[in-house]
């Protein structure tokens, strides 16, 4: 591997996490929310914002927690999932209370999605991969530093938001399009998601990564 400056490395990490290994359309994580809320642009924007916010926050908290508590105790190898769930749930609850008191506008903009994504699989996946980037196969160092973990999570969250908004726009258009009666609704949504996912394969060879 040729030597890259740290900035290039972070940039590639961001793009790789957002587009090449898109969490929704390439890896099929968090598809429940992808189909559940993509019927209106308004809810999608709220959800995307909340996911970006919570994911970055949760994964920075779990990274610190993993390296400060779990690893020194020697229990990190098998205890990280229950511990992360606890930390993320507690953190989201705390932030929700804080926002409600001091930033009510943001609280209202994110609405119900803030508490809902506490147990979203994408959030846990990003948090886990920040400390164990196992199946994220890029020419990157195995252990993320804190900055790398944050940038990686930001990339995942941006990729989630981008794919969700694309898909929502498609579905809103499909709702008024004269589709076949038998395909109207859910079947058409799944076909559209499949085609969109097909498009993301093309991004797999982006910059020869």
């Amino acid at each position, binding site marked *: 591997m040729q030597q890259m400056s740290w900035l290039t490395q972070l940039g590639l990490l961001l793009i790789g996490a957002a587009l090449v290994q898109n969490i929704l359309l390439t890896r099929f994580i968090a598809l429940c929310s992808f189909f559940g809320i993509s019927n209106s642009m*308004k809810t999608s924007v709220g959800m995307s914002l909340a996911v970006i916010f919570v994911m970055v926050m949760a994964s920075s908290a779990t990274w610190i927690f993993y390296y400060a*508590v*779990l690893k020194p*105790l*020697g*229990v990190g190898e*098998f*205890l990280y999932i*229950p*511990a992360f769930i*606890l*930390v993320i*749930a*507690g953190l989201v*609850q*705390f932030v929700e*209370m*804080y926002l*409600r*008191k*001091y930033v009510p506008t943001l609280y209202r903009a994110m609405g119900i999605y803030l508490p809902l994504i506490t147990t979203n699989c994408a959030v846990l996946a990003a948090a886990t991969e920040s400390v164990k980037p196992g199946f994220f196969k890029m020419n990157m160092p195995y252990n993320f530093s804190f900055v790398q973990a944050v940038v990686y999570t930001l990339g995942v969250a941006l990729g989630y938001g981008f794919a969700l908004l694309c898909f929502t726009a498609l579905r809103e258009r499909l709702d*008024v399009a*004269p589709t076949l*009666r038998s395909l*109207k609704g859910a079947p058409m949504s799944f076909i559209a998601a499949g085609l969109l996912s097909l498009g993301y394969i093309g991004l797999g060879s982006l910059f020869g990564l």
Partner: protein
Amino acid sequence: MDWALIVKAGLALAGIGILIAVLLSTAARKFHVDVDERVEQILGVLPGANCGACGNPSCFGAAEAMAAERIPVTSCVAGGQDVASGVAHVLGQDTPSVETVVSVRHCGGGTNASRSFAYSGATSCNVVAKLSGGDLKCPAGCFGYGDCVKACPFDAMSLDERNLPVIDLAKCTGCGICIAECPRSGSGLLELVTDEGAVVVRCSSHDRPKERKAYCSMCCIACKKCEKACPADAIHVIDLNAVVDFAKCTACGQCVAVCPQSCIDITGRLALASAASIDGCGSKVEGFVPLETKEPVAAGVRDDAS
């Protein structure tokens, strides 16, 4: 078995749990927000259909806005007088008076109107409207595929035997969702009028009467008989279509009696005090004229037209 590891793991999880519990209970006290309990009370009064006619995304949003007095208590279009009074009671304000509106249909065509092609696709007005302007020859009439019926959150509309949407005025709240759904809203097929409005003109076309009669047997022919018959000067033919001024209308029914096309109907909650037979000719089999017989229906055959 490594007991030390088990103890460590247990302690770690218990420690996190206790730490988060302490943090959250402190935060809950520190960040406590007083919730206006009037919001819940107002929410109990509101219809809960989340129709959005007031401009708020949900009934909860409307309740919050009403409690904060950002919008007046009369904002709930669907609720009308009862809800406005209820909300005013919760907020300790004087009871306001609300003018209720209901939706009316300005078309009596349906199966009486001729079609330019046989359409057999998806039964949706919005779909057929995109196929070279739709199968209906009349550029203003009702397609009759019932998009408004499907959209109505209050179950107030139904298609009758002539494929025209009949509005049950007992259930219609005037939220206007049917109008937003209708592809013919531009020409005023469905319209919100005061529920005290007593008559409705079942035609919204502005074509020349000769053209109009060629594609529909139920249309207004702009003959001005209603205009002459009206003792209150409340109905006028404007742009080749009869228009009623509800401020002047006395619900005498003269225009309904003289209309040679039977295209004016009795409607409205006051005129139809019996609230059971509702949407005038649209719901009456007697008003039905097959396409082949272009004979106008004699006035008075409808039992609600007298």
